[in-house]
């Protein structure tokens, strides 16, 4: 008997709350519920039997929190859970499925928390293997509040069993998960991961779930499962109570089953009486037939972008092709440069970001993985993973928190058979280039034929047409004047077939002057032809203007509100593509660089730094670089400027934000010097190495980051080990670099302990090294107590200490 065969033939009922029933029978607060599998098996057998007698077809084994973070005998606990459940099934005389129940690990995943994604997968994998061994019929992943942990659990289930997988998440009354995901995001993610049944549980009662369920039903082409609480929780005399009784519950559920739920049951506050009322009322209902939904959805952890309606902008700037600075950033592992490209495009209006970090001389797989991880840590935009390296593609798809766009496959059989299996496993919407072994077809018909081949091959992997976006191929106009016509014709015909399309727009103007004029016009024509998404440079004013005007004229900008908001206060458009977009429009989102201030150009470098003008500082430094020696600039302008600001900060006439704006301006000045020096081919001398870290257990690192920027301003080579850093890592780095100074930060009394431990280990392994400490809870007394050499009450103090210690000869 397999659930997959029964789904859709009749309504399947699953049991109700377990935790609340255990509490009623004496489970103490803080006591681990799964421990009762061994100590109070009769209670579990009883409850399971009651649910079976109430009509449940699926019972959940008592394994919700059975993982290695809570138990050191996971296998035993899980096995006992199934022994009890099976006993109950036997006693009831009914046929039923027993589900391996998996809830959250209780830890938050990186980057927001400290649990590594692959470690989360391995924690769940252990549970799955134990469940399979114990005889599970189904894997039920439930009460998930974070899409990333959800993905880890699903991968673990799929990689360690062939069992049907059901997954449900918790939404709140704002129709979002705690980490921000909407029903669209959850649906796309779980469908992409090929989960057998998806849905929601806990958090809300059936009434509050109805509108959320409706949304999921609108987008989902897979069976839906719903297990609400018995209403919203309320406390009474210190106890949590739920107000929705069995009859009312069943009545609400009848409506939801009518809307398309195939599997129904209850969560917190529901009892065997609720399930009995539910089965009694709804057992005769026919499951609403599933229909194939035609929505193309790409998501981040929180945001869904839909292709097929209003055109979508895919930002093309994270790509080294033709950009020497970007290439250098990749070689240096300069992630900030790449992140800045991402944020700038997001601020300019991109909906999705293309990510291409391929360079022959670097490890593309590692770089792609790191870039995707870092981008998704700072931006809520979905990503398009752009690589021809299948290994890089797989790593990126695996750690991606959402359903990504995949760039790309084409009609070549080898490419499709290497990429489609990844899409089948991890989910994704795939760009299919309309070319194959025979090259690029010269006609629209030819490109459509390749597209058909791509759809057909995708179908072999269960990838539906909605998850394919055909790139109709933009060919250079200057070499063939029919190029645009063919491309647009292909877009139009694909659109007529109900397909999704994408174009890399800029290629059209290759070799022509004033490229943006051509690009923006072509972009407009393509959108008019029905283009779903354009891969463009969103920082180019002309491109965004073409897009914004198309949205107005195409009826995608309701009452022209977005247009008015953006352009009403702006100066008239300038046709030149080089005009700064920011200068002409006010963007809704804030800019990364903070406040812009206009300043006359004659400001000296010192002025720029003191006033904290980042962009002007770079220019001012550039201006003097030809005329003065670099050391003269550093010692004659940069350092004195920093000293002015530092003294002002000491005296309380300059405050932290101003100090930091100046630090950023100084950084920009150094940047100009660095660029100049590297053009000259000489190396710049660095002062001593200083290792800094936020200690293990602590994840607040702004103070440490401030110290880093200031120390760098003063010319030190700062090795920043990040946050939550174990003592061993710090010691190893100090030993390796023979750094004379270490800076440690801790914010909590609870983490000062690891600071003390780090210092102790440093004394043993690196006796030459001085240790300075800082952070909210620290005081001079505390610092003395844990054996630090220096306590800095603010960031400037650490600079003064470093200068005193390491730069006496100045």
């Amino acid at each position, binding site marked *: 008997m397999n659930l997959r065969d029964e789904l859709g033939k009749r309504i399947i009922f699953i049991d109700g709350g377990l935790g609340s029933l255990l509490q009623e029978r004496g489970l*103490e607060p803080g006591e681990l519920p799964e421990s009762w599998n061994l100590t109070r098996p009769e209670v579990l057998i009883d409850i399971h039997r009651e649910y079976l007698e109430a009509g449940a077809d699926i019972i959940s084994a008592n394994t919700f929190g059975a993982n290695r973070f809570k138990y050191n005998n996971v296998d035993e606990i899980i096995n006992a859970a199934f022994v009890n459940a099976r006993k109950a099934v036997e006693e009831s005389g009914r046929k039923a499925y027993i589900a391996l129940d998996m809830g959250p690990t209780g*830890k938050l995943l990186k980057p927001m928390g400290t649990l590594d994604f692959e470690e989360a997968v391995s924690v769940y994998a252990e549970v799955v293997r134990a469940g399979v061994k114990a005889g599970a019929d189904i894997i039920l992943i439930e009460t998930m509040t974070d899409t990333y942990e959800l993905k880890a659990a699903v991968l673990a289930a799929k990689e360690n069993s062939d069992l049907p997988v059901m997954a449900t998440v918790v939404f709140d009354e704002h129709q979002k998960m705690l980490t921000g995901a909407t029903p669209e995001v959850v649906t796309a993610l779980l469908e992409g991961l090929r989960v057998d049944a998806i849905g929601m549980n806990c958090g809300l009662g059936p009434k509050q779930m109805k509108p959320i369920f409706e949304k999921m039903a609108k987008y989902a082409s897979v069976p839906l499962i719903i297990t609400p609480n018995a209403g919203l929780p309320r406390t009474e005399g210190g106890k949590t109570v739920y107000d929705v009784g069995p009859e009312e519950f069943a009545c609400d559920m009848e409506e939801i089953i009518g809307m398309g739920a195939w599997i129904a049951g209850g969560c917190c506050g529901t009892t065997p009486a609720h399930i009995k009322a539910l089965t009694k009322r709804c057992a005769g209902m026919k499951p609403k037939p599933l229909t194939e939904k035609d929505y193309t959805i790409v998501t981040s952890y929180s945001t869904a972008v839909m292709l097929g309606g209003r055109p979508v902008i895919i930002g093309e700037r994270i790509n080294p092709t033709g950009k020497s600075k970007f290439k250098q950033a990749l070689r240096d592992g300069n992630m900030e440069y790449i992140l800045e490209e991402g944020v700038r495009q997001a601020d300019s209006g991109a909906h999705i970001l293309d990510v291409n970090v391929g360079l022959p001389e670097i490890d593309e797989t590692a770089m792609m993985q790191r870039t995707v991880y870092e981008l998704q840590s*700072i*931006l809520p935009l979905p990503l398009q993973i752009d690589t021809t390296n299948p290994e890089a593609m797989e790593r990126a798809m695996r750690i991606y928190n959402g359903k990504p766009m995949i760039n790309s496959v084409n009609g070549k059989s080898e490419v499709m058979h290497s990429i489609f299996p990844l899409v089948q496993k991890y989910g994704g919407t795939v760009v299919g280039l309309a070319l194959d072994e025979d090259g690029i077809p010269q006609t629209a018909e030819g490109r459509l034929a390749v597209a058909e081949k791509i759809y057909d091959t995708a179908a072999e992997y269960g990838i539906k047409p909605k998850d394919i976006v055909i790139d109709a191929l933009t060919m250079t106009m200057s070499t063939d004047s029919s190029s645009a016509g063919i491309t647009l014709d292909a877009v139009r015909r694909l659109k007529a077939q109900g397909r999704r399309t994408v174009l890399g727009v800029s290629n059209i103007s290759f070799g022509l002057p004033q490229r943006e004029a051509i690009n923006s016009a072509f972009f407009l024509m393509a959108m008019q032809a029905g283009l779903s998404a354009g891969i463009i440079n969103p920082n180019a004013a002309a491109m965004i203007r073409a897009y914004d005007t198309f949205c107005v004229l195409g009826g995608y900008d309701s009452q022209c509100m977005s247009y008015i908001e953006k352009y009403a206060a702006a100066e008239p458009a300038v046709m030149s593509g080089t005009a700064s977009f920011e200068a002409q429009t006010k963007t809704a989102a804030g800019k*990364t660089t903070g406040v812009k201030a206009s300043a006359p150009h004659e400001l000296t470098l010192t002025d720029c730094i003191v006033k904290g003008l980042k962009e002007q500082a770079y220019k001012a430094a550039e201006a003097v670089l030809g005329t003065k020696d670099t050391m003269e600039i550093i010692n004659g302008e940069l350092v004195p400027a920093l000293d002015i600001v530092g003294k002002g900060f000491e005296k309380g006439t300059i405050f932290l*934000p101003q100090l930091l704006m100046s630090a950023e301006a100084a950084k920009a000045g150094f940047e100009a010097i660095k660029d100049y020096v590297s053009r000259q081919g000489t190396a710049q001398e660095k002062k001593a190495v200083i290792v800094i870290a936020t200690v293990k257990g*602590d*994840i607040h690192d*702004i103070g440490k980051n401030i110290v880093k920027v200031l120390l760098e301003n003063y010319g030190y080579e700062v090795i920043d080990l990040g946050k939550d850093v174990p003592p061993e890592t710090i010691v190893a780095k100090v030993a390796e670099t023979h750094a004379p100074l270490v800076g440690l930060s801790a914010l909590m009394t609870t983490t000062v302990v690891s600071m003390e431990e780090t210092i102790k280990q440093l004394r043993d392994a690196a006796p030459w090294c001085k240790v300075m400490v800082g952070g909210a809870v620290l005081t001079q007394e505390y610092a003395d107590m844990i054996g630090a050499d220096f306590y800095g009450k603010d960031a400037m103090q650490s600079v003064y200490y470093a200068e005193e210690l390491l730069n006496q000869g100045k």
Partner: protein
Amino acid sequence: MIIDRKEALRYMGFGKNDPDERTAALMEECIRETENTAQPRHVYRRFGLKVTEDDYIEAAGLRFHSRNLSKNLTGCGEIIFFAATLGNGVDMLMNRYARLSIAKAAVLQAVAAAAIEAYCNQCQKSIEEKLAGEGLYLRPRFSPGYGDLSIAVQPDFLAAIDASKTVGIVLSEGGVMLPEKSVTAVMGISGENSRCHIEGCEACPKKDCAYRRESRNEFKR
């Protein structure tokens, strides 16, 4: 949720000084982004309370020691366990600027701290209004880790209100709350409307704190 600019400036270290034009503009930008990004959530539960003579507080099956809190709870028969958070979107925002602009990161940090305070005040007010209907009064918020109330109570405290499931607050191994801009607090419930003696910043023993409020009349609570 109205973010108190004065409070944000205090967190930036301005004390009673006015901000310069550029800081003020940066602060407004950060306030806008925080308001757009925050997903504020809170949860609270009401428990019976017993305070022993030797300053043990007993509620929700927990027992912990604090002289400061026991004083704060004098005359209270019940207690509220409260937790609130701005959600992890704000953490992401802070991560973003920590990487790209340290000045903005510092300002955002202060703005977000003021935002969670404002949100807590707003929640507290609505709880107060509810209790007023029963003729009951609420004591000021008192957070674990504050005064002599050990932060070690945090795990049990969060478990008692199911904070990880209801509002998404979890603890790191080091005992740090995640999302970063989160607050836990207890509030006593009493039949008598007695204002507590001192509260907030001024009651804290860390007298050399750069962010210490200068005078308690300076800011209205």
